[in-house]
Each structure stands twice: as C-alpha cells, then as structure tokens.
C-alpha cells in the first residue's frame, strides 16, 4: 500500500533538531504535501460558519456592508464629515480590514481548538493556521465582486483599469497575515492571553490605520490627527503595514480625495515601492513565524 508519510523519519530523538532552514523546508513540504488535508479543513471551516446562521455565508458579504453603514452613519451624520462618495471610500478599506481581522481571529485559536486531535494523531500542525487563513480568501473574493458591482452601478466615476491591481495588493496582505497567524497561533498555545488580547489590539490597530480616515486631505479630517500626533507620530502611522495596504486598496478602488476635501481623482496605480518593501517585510515575518511555529510545535501535544 502507498502511504504518504511526511514524518521526517521513524527515528526520533531529542538530540536531533533541525536548524532554521530545515524547519522552513519542513513546513513547506508539510503544507504542500498535505494540500488535501488543508482543503478538507477549509471546506469544514466554511460550512461550520455558514451553518449556524439563517443567511449562512451571505453574512460574509453583508457584514462589511453593515459595518460600512455603521461608520457611514457615525461619521457623516453625527460627526458631519463630508467626503465625496463616502460609502465607497469606507468600503474600499473596511473590506480588506475585515479580511485581516477575521483571518487572525480564526488563526489565533486554530491550534488550541484542535486540542483533542493534536493529542491523538500525529500530523503537521502547520496546516491548522494555514487553512484558517486560506479559508478566508474565498470570502475576500466575494467581497471583491461587491466592490466591482459598486463601482459599476453606483460610482462609475471612480472606476479605472487600476482595479486590476487588487489581487496583487491582496497577495501582499496574504503573506503578511499568514506570517502573523503562524506566530500568534503558536504563542496562544502557551499563553492563552494572546487570544484575548488580540481582539482588542486589532480594534486599536483599525483606528490607527487609514480605514475611516486617510492621509490624503490636510483640510478637516487628517489635519486633526496630524495636530494631535505631531510629525513623529504621523511618520509612525505611515510606517504601519496597514497604512500601506489600505492606502493602496483605496488608491485603486476609490482614487484620492483632493486637498480641499470636496472632490476626488479616480482610481490610480498603488505606490509600488511601498508595496514592494511591505512584501519584503511580510516575507521576513512569514519566515520568522514559520521558524517559531515549528520550534514550538513539538511541545503542543504536551501543553494542550
């Protein structure tokens, strides 16, 4: 019979520990060798989320739309902000943010949730956070369809060919998210505090990222932030990976708000240099996350 054993060998000893490169190679082999397992886990994941609710997976599209509506009401009615075509402005950033937040949220508990399985079956644990993050990709794809519909039906003035950059930006975000997911899912096994904290940290991160505001117009919105934080604070805000990502998304979907804040220029190419640098950083994070995950992996079964 044929059996695909990814276990490195049948020889195990505490003395034999692969180095950093070996760990990465192992993680890659495990991820690609167990594609089928990942696919099973993803389909289980998607079905689980769809089954508890009346509207099922439709919620994933409705959720960012409703979130957008909440901020729309809050900002334009209560705080009397008037950005042109504000719904699109918000949705362009809230959609990818939602993707990130729910990916991390699922990934944090992905290993801990499978406690019983980990104690009873020998399998590469990398597949757990990987499938948690990968399961969300499908939802993002649905979200992008909504974006295209919005552009075509309601905001044709914003639409340009630059929308085609979306998959590229999403790819950079995917690498970043996966690296972070590996890191937090492994650490959460040892300190469950991570899972509790991460929800709050992600919310704070949201407000520090240009999702409901932007770096564009110095009049009105951003001016107040600039004043409060000073120059150093603003450059810190700009160094935030999600400053780069959300700005890039908004550039290609919405375009830019002009200086005065009463008009816009339609969709344009993203800042490729910033994106490229973020990609390098994300790859670094992914490598670091993989190494830490693989280092901690042998202890999972004992600690859980």
């Amino acid at each position, binding site marked *: 019979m*044929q059996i*695909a054993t990814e276990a490195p060998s049948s020889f195990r000893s505490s003395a034999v520990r692969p180095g950093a490169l070996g760990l990465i190679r192992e993680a890659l082999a495990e991820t690609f060798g167990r594609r089928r397992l990942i696919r099973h886990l993803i389909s289980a994941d998607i079905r*689980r989320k769809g089954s508890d609710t009346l509207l099922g997976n439709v919620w994933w599209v409705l959720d960012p739309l409703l979130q957008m509506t909440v901020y729309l009401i809050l900002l334009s009615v209560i705080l009397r902000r008037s950005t042109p075509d504000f719904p699109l402005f918000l949705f362009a950033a809230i959609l990818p943010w939602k993707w990130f937040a729910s990916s991390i949220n699922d990934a944090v508990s992905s290993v801990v949730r499978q406690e019983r399985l980990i104690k009873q*079956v020998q399998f590469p644990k990398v597949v757990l956070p990987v499938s948690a993050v990968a399961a969300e990709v499908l939802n993002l794809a649905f979200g992008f369809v909504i974006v295209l519909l919005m552009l075509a039906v309601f905001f044709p003035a914003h639409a340009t060919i630059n929308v085609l950059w979306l998959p590229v930006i999403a790819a950079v975000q995917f690498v970043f998210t996966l690296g972070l997911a590996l890191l937090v899912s492994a650490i959460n096994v040892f300190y469950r505090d991570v899972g509790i904290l991460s929800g709050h940290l992600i919310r704070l991160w949201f407000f520090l990222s240009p999702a409901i505001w932007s770096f564009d117009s110095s009049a009105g919105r951003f001016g107040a932030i600039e004043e409060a934080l000073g120059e150093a604070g603003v450059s810190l805000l700009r160094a935030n990976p999600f400053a780069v990502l959300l700005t890039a998304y908004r550039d290609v979907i919405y375009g830019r708000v002009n200086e005065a804040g009463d008009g816009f220029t339609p969709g344009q190419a993203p800042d490729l240099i910033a994106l490229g640098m973020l990609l390098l950083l994300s790859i670094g994070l992914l490598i670091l996350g993989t190494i830490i995950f693989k280092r901690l992996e042998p202890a999972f079964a004992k600690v859980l």
Partner: protein
Amino acid sequence: MPSGFAIQTRDLGVRYSLRFTKKTSIRRSFARLLKRNRGEKSFWALRGLSITVAPGESVGIIGPNGAGKSTLLQVLAGIIMPSEGIVEVNGHVSTLLHLQAGFDQELSGRENIMLAGALMGIDHKVMEERQESIVDFADIGAFIDAPLRTYSSGMRAKLGFSIATAVDPDILLLDEVLQTGDEAFREKSHQRIADVLGAAKAVVLVSHDMSWITEFCNRAILLERGSIVADGKPDEVVATHMEHSEHRKQKYREVLEGMRSGRIAVRGRPKQLVREAERTGRQIPAIAPEDEREPLARP
C-alpha cells in the same frame, strides 16, 4: 521488515513542564508567580525506558492511572517528542488512540472518512478505494451522507471504529477505546480487532481490561511511575499488577481508617496521599504505630 525489531526505545524519557500545564486558575497562576522558584517545575512521565518489540509481538501495557501508559503510546506514535533517549520505529505506524478525534461536526460521514484519511497521511486514492468497505462496516444507512452533528453517539462510535480499523498498518498502537456500539456491533468489532491485530506486524495495546491483555497479547509490560516494573508473559505480569493494585487499595483503606480515627493528621484525599508517598518514597506520617512502620513505596 529488514532488521530485527519493530519498535525500539533506548533510555526514553518524557518530561512535562509544569509551568504550562493547562487550565490554571487566575488564583493559582498568581500564587505561582509569587513563589516562582519554589516547588517542582517539571516531572518525568517516563524515564529510562528501554523496550524492544520484535516483529510478531503483541505487547500489552498495563499499570495504574498516571503510570505513563498513554504517554508511552504518544511517544511511539510521534505525537510527543522524547525529552531524552531515542525512539526507533520500523514501519508505518497507525494509532487508534481515540476514534473520534478528527471528526468534524459539519462534514458528512463520507467526508469525515476522507478527512480522517488525510489526517493520518494516507494516500487519497487508497482512501477512496477503502471508503466503500468502511461505509459497509459502519452500517449506519443513509446517515452516511448527513452531517455528523445529526448522528447519535452510537453511530459516531461505529463510524470511528470502522475508519480506525480500515487502515492496515505495520505497527498498530491502540488505546482502550474499542468497546463501542450496541451488542451486535460489539461482537462484529471484536472479530475485526482480532483480524487487525493478526494482520499487523507488531501491536502495542494499552488497556485496563485485563481480559484483553491475556486474550490479544503475547507479552505484557507493567508500568508504574514511568518505569518498567515487570515485563514478560501476560498472565504473570497481570498477576503482578493485580497484586500491586490490591496492595495499593489496602493502603488507601489504611489511610482512610487512620484519618477517620485521627491517627493521621495530614489533610488530603487518601488516594493522593498514598500516591504522593509512593512517588517520593516517604511514608505518610503516623500511618502506623511507631514499631510497625514500613516503607510505603515499594510493595
């Protein structure tokens, strides 16, 4: 199998860190923070274990709770890395530690079969071929295509058993979980277990049910406190185990008696006191009149 053994361990030890044991309450973790350096930080669940299992052997592992039986199976299965020493396994290992561990509530029975196969690293094609025979054996009718959350616990157990025993491994590791389902299924499964055990080249079986050990095994190992106490013919080792556990029960009764009559001033549950005394080799204070005291630990 080329060489002369199926499984070999040399000076195997598994250490658990107590710092990260799970589900600690806030109060306890604060207490731990305060006395950071006091108390034990780790304990050895297994220590100095050297076992060689030859092809064709079927080894039963017995021992009291907490002796390290399950840990031993986990190490052999590769779920836990040894903290010291070496484990060598010659052939494909299959573990039937818990039959329903990998089940997903939302997937159908059929999909769960494929998921279990993917988890165990069995080739997709092989699993597809076996799917029908697994479905047949489980015998749960139309439910096989319904999501698992609609199953009764009996159906779940049947499906789990069918999947677990459908693999045909070189080396089989079993935790005692195979008694499942209704009377008819149990009879059918008994035969299946005998078949699987017969087909495997080596078997390691953990059970509290001594009849299993004497029926299915041709060798038994008695583990106590992480080390081998006896190793040999099943009925002899089982007899030793019975003797030891009888002795332990006797001690519980003595301690309980002592506590009731006030001879023992220590607080705690008798079982824990006896186990603690066994582990440390010290005796429980004032368990017997001065001149009758004997070391509690070694029966």
